[in-house]
């Protein structure tokens, strides 16, 4: 594939299928925000450092600012807007885990990925585990305390039993 030639790709985003024709190296972040109008995914740095643009690509959490669209061809993309994020979202509201909100979409997606990993690997959620899992998502407002509270509450709601710290 050449960088100039338009490519046809298929994406399933939060359960909806899309067919797109685009420059293959465009960032997945821009395709979501500009082509599909899904502005829930945010850009904080554009270089994979802040995690605000985190989405799941076939279940794997990635910074969508670093993913060329072509690489996601045929993939299932999960963003903050996914209906399956409800429990995580409610936990963040209750625990005040979101202040200004710009990093929140990335944190919601990453928390969900962490909970799914805990379930898959039969790993007990802990504060330390949540800190490690969310270490790639920068938040400047909260000091992370209430973010970690929210992640643990979301894990509890998903039926996981908290482990010893």
């Amino acid at each position, binding site marked *: 594939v050449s960088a100039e030639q338009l490519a046809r790709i298929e994406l399933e985003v939060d359960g909806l299928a899309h067919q797109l024709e685009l420059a293959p190296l465009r960032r997945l972040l821009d395709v979501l925000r500009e082509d599909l109008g899904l502005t829930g995914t945010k850009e904080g740095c554009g270089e994979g450092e802040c995690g605000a643009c985190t989405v799941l690509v076939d279940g794997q959490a990635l910074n969508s600012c670093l993913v060329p669209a072509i690489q996601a061809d045929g993939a299932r993309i999960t963003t903050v*807007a996914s209906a399956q994020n409800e429990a995580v979202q*409610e936990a963040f509201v209750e625990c005040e885990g979101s*202040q*200004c909100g710009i990093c929140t979409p990335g944190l919601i997606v990453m928390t969900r990925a962490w909970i799914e990993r805990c379930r898959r690997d039969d790993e007990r959620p802990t504060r330390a585990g949540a800190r490690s899992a969310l270490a790639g998502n920068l938040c400047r407002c909260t000091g992370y305390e209430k973010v970690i509270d929210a992640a643990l509450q979301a894990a509890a709601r998903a039926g996981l039993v908290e482990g010893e710290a």
Partner: protein
Amino acid sequence: MGRSGHDRVRGLTRYVADEVPEGAWLGAALRSELPRARLRAIARDPAFDWSGVVVVEARDIPGSNHVAMIAEDWPVLAADHVGHVGEPLALVAAPSAAALGAALAAMTAELEALEPTLDFERSEELLHPLSIQKGDCTAGLAAAAHVFEGTYRTGSQEQMYIEPQGCIGFPPDAEGRVLVKGSMQCPFYVQRALVEALDLPRELVAAEQSATGGGFGGKEDYPSMLAVHAALLAKACAQPVAMILDRHTDLVVTPKRHPSRVVHRTGFDADGRLLAMQVDVLLDGGAYTTLSPVVLSRACIHAAGAYVCENVSIQGRAVATNHVPYGAFRGFGAPQVCFAIERQMDRAARALGLHPVELRRRNMLRVGERTATGQLLQESVGSVEVFERALERTRFDQHEWGASRAQEGRVRRGVGLAFFYHGAGFTGAGEENMKARVEVELGRDEHGAFRCRVHASSTEFGQGTIALFQTIAADALGCARAQVACPTPNTSRVPDSGPTVASRTCMVVGGCVARACRELRARVEAEVGAAGDFGERALRLLATRPDERVSAEVVYASPPGLVWDESTYAGDAYPAYGWAVDVAEVEVDLDSFEVRTTRFLSAVDVGKAINPLLVEGQIEGGSLQSVGFAHLEVVTSAEGRFLQDRMASCIIPTALDAPDFEVELIEVPFSHGPMGAKGVGELPMDGGAPAVVSAIEDALGLHVERVPATPEHLSELWLAAHPEDAL
């Protein structure tokens, strides 16, 4: 789409980058690569097709070529003199990112380099001086049994809001009205900047806040610059223009915390009581005045710390250099001086053979004492309460602080404490001059149900402004929080409640909200009685006045009896202060000299925690910024250019760097604050750095006199003290 927690966690909240209209052009600035220069000309490549883009230079500015702030020295675009790297020289807008990049590449600034001033400690160009005098400092020092001297330095710090700065300018409409939307803390600052630079009457200029992804002071002054740029370009191309900074540009060009040097000479009597404090405060203001005079003001007022002393002399200077103008960052001068005084108290404690707790107990401000500006503290002084609560929780007074504890092994542990206070609201007569206004309106929502609307220019950028006003209004009216709405701050639709800065939103603007609501409640009670649901009664009142706006507008009135003399800088500096003690525990790895904060307790008196979870969130978030300031966050420059110009190098704490926070909320109510509340936003930024560094001193036995206490710095200090460890 709304800005509530429910909206934010679903990605529904629309920030400025989410609001760029279809077909909008993109704008950017050609910026200086040199710290100081004369601008000869801006050359445009004749081979480039300029017909598809617009360019704006200084000569195209219809009004005054300055961004309205305190002085009139901050150019919208450099006209001839260039004062810092990143200074805008010309503006370009184009219909696509590719065309914008090509146009920028086809422009060359012809700059004649001049010798820059980069070391603020050697700058002789004064931006602003300040002096606070109380008693006779010279006599006090002469009479002292012990005199200690110390010099303390703090580095710059990047606000690092996760949403970069951005504005969208709209071209003038048929009536000549101009609108700018954007990420901002202070819509009326932006409006004033537009009025002055575009030479338009106020009625034709509106600034509207988009949902804002963090500010911390960083979106106090610079949005005015970006808004003027966006409006100029929008007018030139007759299209909406989005000026949204990428992270790299944001880091290179926007204001950060003022670097400081603070020198203390402190005299104690034989019992360890303060006799005299001589403090010299020096701030790097950068290339233009911007907010430096007020940052220096807050720095000087807080420079003597939360201690009693009869003889005080504080000299402050903000000087000019060829750096990006330093600006507002949470704490606004206080974190710098708090670090210095708390380190100086630790130095004195060690020299006097007193526990840091004991020295502070002997000297702390209490009710009935006077501050450095001579202010008599009459009420809402939680100093003793926060101190004792922090000790109860940590037993720090039982901890043998200092180098005496023999530790071995690779990981050394230490504990440190900081005691501090922070004035709420504008300084001195600032609030009297500001005359903040708020209007509260009773009305209906789109379904006809009761809805109270709070019209204020206070912006939400994560601190919880909306929830705060909802709680205050609901409490004062006797309705449900969900029945209170805070419409988007737009200068053509809300009264000027002042900027969202200085820990003033709760105490000052919130107080106005409460008063307006009480007026409305009294009106409803007088006309339709006091019994039953407030919303139903309000609807009955509204039904009798179908064509009338039922609202109350109030103007802020300072608490009675406050006296401030601007010429001598004496008197009641603030209506009230927040009080706090931080206790930090650290581990320092002697191989890498990396510091880990393992426990952080903050006991704070904010008068009243109106929304306790949100207040805790402010304390935790501010404290982590302060921990970052202590040892992690580095902002340095070479040849006037910030070296940390990407997120990868300009690091802030991650979830793994953060300790588990313990917050103890203590409420010593302030009779003139809404529900008893004072300010909270800035307070937690002041104490973390001195507490963490005190803990490092405890762990290593090194007196650390500057932040950030990076591994490199600690290793240098260690090797100087332990030459036998050198390789």
